[in-house]
């Protein structure tokens, strides 16, 4: 059973950021739609970006092409959730 609704996807994206970046539960819970990610969160370097995207692929059963990865989809937590939701199988 693959996660297919938006709240499940948001929960998954939050958990992936927590697990890959080693965020505390409090920091992970505090991620909001407009929380800035890439460029604002020091843990999120290029190796960590690769880990986040690959972990999202595994947990959501999606495939993210390299040319889809840009600053926009990683700009905020909300942008990353919307990107993942658009990729998730229905």
């Amino acid at each position: 059973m693959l996660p297919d609704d938006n709240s499940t996807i948001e929960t998954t994206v939050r958990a992936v950021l927590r697990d890959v970046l080693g965020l505390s539960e409090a920091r992970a819970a505090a991620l909001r739609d407009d929380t800035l990610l890439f460029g604002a969160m020091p843990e999120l370097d290029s190796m960590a970006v690769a880990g986040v995207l690959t972990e999202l692929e595994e947990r959501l059963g999606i495939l993210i092409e390299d040319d889809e990865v840009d600053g926009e989809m990683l700009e905020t937590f909300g942008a990353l959730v919307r990107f993942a939701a658009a990729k998730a199988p229905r």
Partner: protein
Amino acid sequence: MIDHYDWRGGREAMLRFGPTNGPIVVIAMPLFEEANRTRAFVVTLCRALAAREVASALPDLPGQGESVLPTDDARLDDWRAAFAAAAGNIGRHVHGVALRSGAAIDGEARLESRWRLSPLPGAAALSELRRAASTGGTAIPVQPGADCPPLLLAGNRIAPPLFNALTDDGAVAVPDGPLRTVRLVSDPQPADRKVDAAPLWRRAEPGNDPALAALLADDIAAWIARCGG
């Protein structure tokens, strides 16, 4: 203790833990960066197995870890052959434990059973390195020619034959014999058991999880007892 094993291409180091008799497992570590992130955890797991009277062996692969073989000379078929030789070196009734992309190299070994944690194929292991390199601004060819120099992917020098063999390794092999797959609760793929833990192999800073090591050691010990010990 630090032991060694011989394979067709030379001699490699192998860490040994636990009792000198009784059941023994040979452990296939994850490939590349995930090996670094999980090394402390794997040693904790080996010690937890030893506390349960299960011996373990942790072979270095040619061209990885302490190996004297240049990293550029590492090949996927050599890894499989070396792992099979390591398993053959340590006894006749050996069980396999593979972590992550370690499942891509345990296929040729003669094993009484296989226990795998969150297995993934070689292609998936390579794709994260590719992605880290491309996010860092390095252009990576899809299929490098044989005369192409080794590619540097997130700090790993990978020659075209290894790169292409990993690319072709698109699905986790399911060899004959007893197989148990354990995954994390966060992983939607099917498994015989799901455990609630964070994926240590993804953490930017290597960590450890003794509680998870103890839980998995219990699972492995019970599994190999069911498979004849």
